[in-house]
């Protein structure tokens, strides 16, 4: 999967026609074959842009920063990234007319070891669902499969799961990188960081980590697109996808919702209801 040339041409054309102020894409990191995001404002830097199966980071995250706010932005999005973009647009975080979206029909990205990432193996929507220009051949929807890790954990007894998750929450250092790298966490100040609240916990105890990660995943439920930005950002390598995929599987099984952000103007699962939603767990 290599769209380097096409993206460089598109970016050059956009700058030449004066259609954008900044182009968000990927560049080589300068010392090995991995890539990092780059925000290009100078048309002469367009030659730095690349796009291969190592273009991992979800760039929609940059639409919440100073550098792109109220500017005209050109952006490269893969399948999952485009869904988070749809949700951002639905939730009125930016204007569609300020964006030029280069959509990719993604064949999956690999991690630093060269292995295809788990969310790509299980990907349901590989083609970008919103774009001004689509590169690649659409592969169409794939059937939804329950994530293998949560299927395995669900089989284990309660006490084993309790111990496993306790280890995870113990190793969280409350750096909040997961929230900052998630494109859908755009609250100016997170609810659990409000110092005046009695619910505040800034400390790095296990209970604080549990509070932060659980609240975060529940506020993201129905909106998470499984881009794995959070997991890659976590300095303690916590398997954060377990929480999000668990919510996703419950939503998928019980509410028959499409994956988040597939249909434009369609909000997440928690913003809708059906008269037929499961009720039997309520007395």
């Amino acid at each position: 999967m290599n769209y380097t040339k096409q993206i460089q041409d598109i970016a050059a054309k956009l700058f030449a026609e004066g259609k954008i102020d900044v182009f968000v894409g990927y560049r080589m990191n300068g010392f090995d074959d991995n890539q990092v995001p780059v925000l290009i404002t100078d048309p002469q830097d367009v030659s730095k842009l690349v796009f291969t199966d190592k273009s991992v980071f979800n760039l929609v995250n940059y639409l919440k920063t100073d550098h792109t706010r109220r500017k005209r932005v050109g952006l490269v999005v893969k399948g999952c990234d485009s869904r988070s973009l749809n949700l951002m647009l639905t939730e009125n975080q930016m204007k569609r007319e300020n964006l030029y979206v280069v959509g990719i029909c993604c064949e999956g990205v690999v991690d630093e070891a060269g292995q295809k990432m788990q969310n790509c193996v299980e990907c349901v929507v590989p083609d970008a669902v919103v774009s001004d220009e689509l590169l690649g051949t659409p592969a169409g929807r794939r059937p939804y499969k329950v994530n293998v890790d949560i299927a395995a954990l669900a089989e284990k007894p309660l006490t084993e799961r309790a111990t496993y998750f306790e280890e995870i929450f113990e190793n969280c250092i409350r750096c909040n990188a997961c929230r900052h790298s998630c494109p859908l966490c755009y609250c100016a100040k997170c609810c659990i960081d409000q110092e005046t609240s009695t619910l505040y916990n800034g400390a790095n105890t296990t209970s604080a980590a549990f509070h932060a990660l659980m609240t975060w995943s529940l506020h993201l439920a129905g909106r998470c697109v499984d881009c794995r930005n959070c997991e890659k950002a976590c300095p303690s390598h916590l398997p954060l996808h377990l929480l999000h995929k668990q919510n996703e599987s419950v939503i998928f099984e019980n509410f028959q919702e499409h994956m988040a952000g597939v249909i434009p103007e369609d909000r997440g699962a928690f913003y809708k209801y059906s008269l037929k939603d499961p009720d039997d767990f309520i007395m």
Partner: protein
Amino acid sequence: MNVETFVTDKAGLQKFYEAIMADRETYAPVEKFGKFDFKRVTHLSECDPESPIAKTQSIKPLFFPRTAKVMKYVATSAGTDVSEVDEDPLAVKRVILGAKHCDARALQVLDKVYNWDYIDTDYQKRRENTLIISTRCDKADAHCFCTSLDYDVENLNAMDVLIVNGADGKIFIKAKTEKGSALLNTDVTRHASRVTETDAAPELKKQYDAFAASFRLKMDYKEVNAKLSKIFDTPEFENVSGNCISCNTCAFVCPTCHCFKISDEKLKDTGVRYKSYDSCNNGYFTLMAGGHNPRPAKYRRWRQRAMHKFVYYKERFGENLCVGCGKCTMACPVNISIFEVVNQVTG
């Protein structure tokens, strides 16, 4: 001072570590989810003192904990009752195995700020009670640049005991401080043989030279420091900070960052006060009452970070705050390298 120097082999080194663990509280890198963090260990099998630098957290949390309870309070009509102020689980006599030398150097640098206008007695006690055993790296990692900075890596005495891998499986154990000498003179070294400093010197030098040649990153520190102090207003900072996501990770893994915040977890009249890590890269770092944010723009926060690491601390305390370990670059979700930033800004 006769510098205690010993030579042993891999098996002897293991016995050395085991002897230390047997009767001292020991901290060493323990693996969890693919990353190594320093935790209390009682057996060599639980840890790996030779953990790869790219995956190992620093030893800073053993001196400046990620979260420390400051006190517990209960407010009654008679006044406020403050309790649990004295406990400091880290202030016991302990040994750290497998510290990287950049980490050990970081503590020497931090000593200055913790002994400045306010003497941080907690930190002092922990420093006095801790013995640091460091293995010199054989090869630099992709992001390391410790040899380019302002300290002598070869003759560093930030650690108490230095371990160097020599040729043909020989491993040298050398005391660097009085505390280190005292340790090596006990029977923990019973499986090693004494050598003189002069005998060991050529092998140590050879290892160091090979190590110094393995660096991908080299900079002219003096030039960088001189240039940086003059270019506060350069617009280059906007360009280099473009893809930062202000996530706090760099400050949390950095062995020399020392910003903290105080948080109260309270319920009506009782509460617990914690001191935990904070980062100047955070969007709402030092938010003031009334809502004023001293550094609202991202490039200003990155400028602060680069200048603090390479200019301000040197001006005030005479040491460069950045020790060139590269942990920030490894941990950064978008791999921003402070080395690259500083070079790009100074042109």
